[in-house]
């Protein structure tokens, strides 16, 4: 992350705005117990209190009299945590598959890529639903389900990078130097493929947050944590009487995902990538 990177990143105004907003959300999530006056589960006011309906209740209360502002703050934790951890898991797995496929080529490549295509052929949301439903909703099962459906693009990307990089001189040099294949793959080639992985990873966090919220909305969220998707689902039955219950968490998801996508574009500018991960000519 050098100065050229920052100069290019800063030139993208959307990316800067996205970064600022994301920092705000991270602060909100980290300081939720301080910023949010109430527990996300406690009934603290009358139900269906409209926004600004009582002092201190800017966003109103939901169907059970819970403070929506507190729910939003605690929900940010879940969205960010699940988005980040599931992406990390997906990136690690996808990178492993892609690295072996690209480095060894031949039948290894063929087998691993058929395996990857299989996962790409299945609609990811339907698959995530089935996985979470079968293994019972919890933060862990949600993270695993999102990781399982999101790794294939990373695998394909890493494979492509490894296919071109494996014939470079520095790889031959390392081979002559007697380094093991594993060592070459992960200490020589992988760092050179880091830029597109980072860009795609940042976009994957956005997708993961959307997926998590969709699962929670379908009633497949972890019952022990407050999440934005759950809030929208819970407000759905009283949409006519209390639109604000569903409106605000949706706006929160939209802005967070938008911020992450904008940051992804900024990263790709800064790292001289095209948005689809290919290196700019």
């Amino acid at each position, binding site marked *: 992350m050098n100065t050229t990177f920052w100069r290019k990143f800063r030139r993208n105004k959307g990316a800067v705005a996205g970064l600022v907003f994301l920092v705000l959300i991270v602060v909100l999530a980290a300081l939720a117990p301080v910023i949010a006056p109430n527990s996300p589960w406690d009934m603290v006011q009358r139900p269906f209190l409209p926004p600004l309906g009582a002092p201190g209740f800017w966003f109103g209360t939901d169907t059970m009299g819970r403070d929506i502002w507190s729910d939003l703050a605690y929900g940010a934790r879940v969205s960010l945590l699940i988005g980040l951890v599931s992406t990390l898991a997906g990136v690690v797995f996808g990178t492993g598959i892609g690295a072996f496929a690209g480095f060894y080529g031949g039948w290894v490549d063929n087998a691993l890529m058929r395996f990857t295509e299989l996962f790409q052929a299945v609609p990811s949301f339907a698959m995530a639903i089935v996985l979470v439903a079968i293994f019972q909703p919890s933060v862990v099962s949600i993270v695993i389900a999102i990781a399982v459906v999101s790794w294939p693009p990373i695998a394909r990307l890493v494979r492509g990078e490894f296919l071109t990089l494996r014939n470079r001189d520095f790889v031959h040099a390392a081979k002559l130097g007697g380094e093991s294949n594993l060592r070459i793959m992960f200490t020589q080639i992988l760092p050179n493929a880091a830029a597109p992985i980072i860009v795609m990873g940042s976009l994957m966090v956005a997708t993961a947050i959307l997926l998590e*919220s969709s699962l929670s*909305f*379908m009633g497949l969220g972890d019952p022990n944590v407050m999440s934005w998707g759950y809030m929208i689902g819970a407000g759905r039955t009283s949409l006519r009487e209390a639109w604000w219950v*569903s409106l605000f968490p949706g706006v929160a998801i939209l802005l967070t995902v*938008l911020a992450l996508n904008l940051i992804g574009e900024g990263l790709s500018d800064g790292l001289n990538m095209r948005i689809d991960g290919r290196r700019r000519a």
Partner: protein
Amino acid sequence: MKRLEYLMRRVFQAVCILLVIAVVNFMLIRAAPGDPASVMAGEAGASDPIFVAQLRERFGLDKPLPVQLLTYVGHVARLDLGESYRQQRPVASLIAERLPATLILTLTAFVAALTFGVTLGAWSSAKAGTWMDSLVTTFSMIFYATPLFWLALMAVLLFSVKLDWLPGFGYETVGSGYAGMARFIDIVKHLVLPATVLAVFYMAVYARMTRTSMLEVAQMDFIKTARAKGLTPGRILRRHILRNALLPVITLAGIQAGAMVGGAVLIETVFAWPGIGRLMFDALVQRDYNLLLGTFLVTAALAVAFNVVTDLLYTLVDPRIELK
């Protein structure tokens, strides 16, 4: 002849994929916490040991695992997806009933997303750098980040509840007694909101893709040649730039078409659209795992079928593409 051979190979691949999904399905129900028979029977059935024992015998759950797997795959191959114990009916016929609604919804949304997405993208690339371009780009960024189910709720709130322009619930007006043309119009009215919401996200994707791709093609030498020949800008845009720029868009559309079937689950849930997605949601709520896995298999089959069809379209659009 070559195309037929290609088609056969693609269909064979698709069948293989579905077979693997069936195997995964089989393993999932056994990987679930608890006894597979009671899982299949749902929670209510589990409380009755005699019923569970009957199930175990009927599905051969006392036999070795490989035998069970073969039996299961054999059933799936004959389109027998088991029983839904909650609804007391075969899963396959429950799904068959819902299939048309899902197809109508996803196909309408797909065609709308592709048509409007490409048009907007082309328009915005032609006006690159102007405020109109920024407007299209900004809106595609926003729609690309919008949770579908939330947009669906807000659409219901605005257009059905507040403005009362369009129905936001179901497939047709229940008990209206409409027939013929009147019924068709009624269904179309019900289709507008769900199809639009489902289309909007993908429209944003295609608009962005078309714009980027067209700006790239516009830099190429053959476009300069076309200009030098004195062709009109409109003709260059349509015949030369757009045609070449469409290829990556169609590739993406093929992949996205499958994802759209998944997105339809959310849309059908919000709009109570009686398709497979709604059935999947009902299965979730009722813990009807047999039905859940059945809908999953059919959803995957639809996605694979969409992919094969777009692949074939692709070879029709661009004769240069090798059928491999």
